[in-house]
């Protein structure tokens, strides 16, 4: 047994040392996409790029969007990857301030609607967008014969008491986006009042999306509350990942005027990359029709490029907000901390 054990150890050490030094120059160039845990894309799509440019794509996931960005900033001197995908407009100002991206202007950028191009320095290029908004459980409301909530302001009414669950903006990205929605809607002078009324109406605060959606939302096995802060892409995902085949979505997104926050996700070329040309090609590729049309079914958001064909489940069950809240990165960067602090005092203490 002892010799077997030694063989085992020896083998593992070999494997380890091999893995550490395996990145030789002889193999095709490896280009690394640094991203957050929610990134996903079809198998075939990246292969298209790899074939065309004789390169190998490596995906490096490091935690949620906030943690991934922090690590990108910390590794500024010797970046962990060549491009970074997945910073949204809530964290954008932090990335711009840290100056971790090379400016780049892909040819296809001109086709993207201006409203998505918030970075005038072209360091962060929009790839997709989605709405953070309220989702409600259709069946629950039908059973109780209570009308669906139509607008943010409905939530303070007595008939919606104890029905809402939101995420803590201090540590959750949809929670933060929803806080921004209320600021954008009611203004800096009014949002706290709105939250005061929500609190009086027994709002429930979860620490993250998973607990809110799978723990408290009435669609989940143990949940009791039929309104939750989630995404515009959640209803089609509910259909796509349902157990039985569904003809209509079990949940709906509330997308009335000024009730949702538009989250835009960006890609940027990390300063210090050793494959600048290839990184630019990869950014181009992310705006190409092949990549763009692959986005909805994997990340449940809309492609940034207009006229990209959408999958059936999106066409049928997803909707965009007509008049979403959009805040400039400067406004966010200047005020985010104090908004969160005031919110915490008003709602939690």
């Amino acid at each position, binding site marked *: 047994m002892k010799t077997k054990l030694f063989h*085992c*150890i020896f083998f*593992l050490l070999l*494997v*380890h040392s091999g*893995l*550490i030094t395996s990145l030789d120059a002889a193999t095709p160039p490896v280009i*690394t996409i640094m991203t957050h*845990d*929610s990134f*996903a*894309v*079809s*198998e*075939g799509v*990246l292969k298209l790029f790899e074939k065309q440019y004789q390169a190998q794509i*490596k*995906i*490096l*996931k*490091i*935690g*949620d969007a*906030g*943690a991934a960005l*922090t*690590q990108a*900033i*910390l*590794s500024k001197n*010797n970046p*962990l990857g060549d491009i970074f995908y997945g910073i949204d407009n809530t964290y954008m100002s*932090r990335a711009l301030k840290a100056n971790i991206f090379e400016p780049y202007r892909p040819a296809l950028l001109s086709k993207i609607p201006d409203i998505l191009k918030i970075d005038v320095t072209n360091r962060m290029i929009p790839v997709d967008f989605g709405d953070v908004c309220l989702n409600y459980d259709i069946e629950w409301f039908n059973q109780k014969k209570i009308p669906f909530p139509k607008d943010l302001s409905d939530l303070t009414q007595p008939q919606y008491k104890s029905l809402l669950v939101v995420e803590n903006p*201090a*540590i959750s990205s949809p929670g933060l986006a929803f806080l921004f929605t209320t600021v954008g809607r009611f203004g800096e002078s009014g949002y706290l009042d709105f939250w005061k009324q929500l609190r009086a109406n027994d709002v429930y*605060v*979860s*620490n*993250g*999306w*998973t607990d809110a959606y*799978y*723990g408290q939302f009435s669609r*989940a*096995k*143990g949940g*009791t509350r039929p309104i939750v802060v*989630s995404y515009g892409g*959640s209803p089609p*995902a*509910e259909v*796509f*990942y*349902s*157990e*039985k085949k569904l003809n209509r979505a079990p949940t709906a997104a509330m997308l009335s005027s000024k009730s949702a926050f538009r989250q835009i996700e960006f890609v940027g070329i990390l300063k210090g990359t050793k494959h600048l040309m290839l990184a630019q090609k990869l950014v181009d590729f992310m705006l190409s029709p092949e990549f763009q049309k692959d986005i909805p*079914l*994997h990340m*449940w958001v809309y492609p940034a490029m207009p006229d990209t064909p959408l999958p059936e489940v999106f066409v049928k069950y997803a909707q965009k907000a007509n008049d979403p809240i959009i805040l400039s990165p400067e406004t966010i960067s200047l005020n985010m901390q104090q908004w969160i602090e005031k919110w915490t005092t008003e709602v*939690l203490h």
Partner: protein
Amino acid sequence: MTSRLRYLLIVPPFIFVGIFFFYPLFNIFCISFSDPASRIVETLLKLLETPYFRQVLWFTTWQAGLSTLITLIIAFPGAYVFSQYQFRGKSLIRALMLIPFVLPTMVTAAAFKALLGSRGVINTGLMFFLNLDQPPIHLDQTVYCVLMAHVFYNYAIVFRLVSGFWERCPKDLPEASQMLGASGLKTFFKVTLPILTPVILAASLLVFVFCFTSFGVILILGGPRLATIEVEIYRQAVHLFNLPRAAVVSLIQIVFTFICMRAYTEIESRSGVSLMPEMTVTRTSFSGRPLKSNFFVWITVGLLFFLLGSPLIALFIESILTENGFSLKYYIALFNNDSRSIMFVPPLTAMINSIFFALSTTVMAVIMGWFTAAFLYRDTQGKASVIDSMFMLPLSTSAVTLGFGFIVAFDSPPLNIRTSIALPVFAHTLIAYPFVIRSLLPAWRSIPKCLREAAAISGASPWEVWCHVDWPILKRALLVGAVFSFAVSMGEFGATVFIARPQTPTMPLAIYRFFSLPGAMNYGQAMAMACILMVITALGGVVIERMAH
């Protein structure tokens, strides 16, 4: 071995911990405090002035203290039964106790909700039997929920320490006391309890440290109104990007847990308390009373099953209870990649990755643990206990701090391993090998000198003495340490959350992935994957322990 040569033993562990723990920590602290506006002392003073932080510090301490006390009280009867009675299935129960160790907090939270949530089993039952309209129990986002989860996670630690120690305690003293007419209760308080004091202290310290640094439980079950120091570090570093503040809070935590670990190692070296009691020498002479019609004993075993078993059973039921009743739908779905996503994790791949990481971790942890224990066991005056407690530090250091430390420390050759898959293994090893030390060291210390001397006098060579005296005892201790290392790595708890991962998804990561998408199938698959994780951990533990025979 001469005492000078002995110091060579500690060189490999020192290098390992130096490079993969102290060096990254040092680096991240340097960067955090590099700005002249945020020097360490100023930041500390400013921080202590904020009422919010004082509140966090106070909550961290009292919830850890209370969790420890409750865990002690609840685990004590179990330890009593297991140390005094002999019955079938005892070793199986002991093995199953390992499972809570590997459960991701999300999964534990789901299990607790299935049991105690407003639509959980218990509330539904009570509403039915008592004819109520509203669920009577509201534990969501309360400190009670946190306390229960801490008991669930730490029961095994108190249980292992106390039952192992109690088993080896001489029975003549309590017997004498009773013979002299003292009541059972009086004997317990005047004789048994004083004998058990060191082990109770040691267990309290370890559980206290684990609860003090609690993160996932507080975040998910505690809700937004409760925060420990560890949660505050995460909030400051990741969401507010206030690195100096995060670093100061992290330092406070390190100093505090170091003191606790110091005390723990002292007690261990003085009184032979052991976290892995089945290893120590005197155990072979143990013969417990058979478990018969003792009512109290049955109650205890039942309670144990209820406490630790019911969340696990609830999980299993969640994984097979679909909209159409019981079925294996979720398990089958794990194998279908309908959307052809590269982020789809085939369960087999996740398993292989997890097992690869866990085995590599186990091997590394065993090697490092062996060197460390070989050095430490000769030290009887407690001189080396500083070193010992230093090696325990990775166990209680903030995951965010260490993860970010890796990023800044290993950014240039020859140590540019930030994106290597060796890094998760090294990180897991840091958390795992303290368990190997805790298993080996008391066993090694418990080998009586006279046994070796007797063998040597009878003409055995030093090699033969080692083979026939030391090795048989150490082998079992090593394997139990290995089982813990395996479990630690399978569950990926502690300092491994913030480490970059190339395309090597593991089972806990697959569970998080499912939990981050809407839709009933995703929830079901997360549950199914969690159950597979439990089974593999238990199996892995059994296989490694079997190697002893």
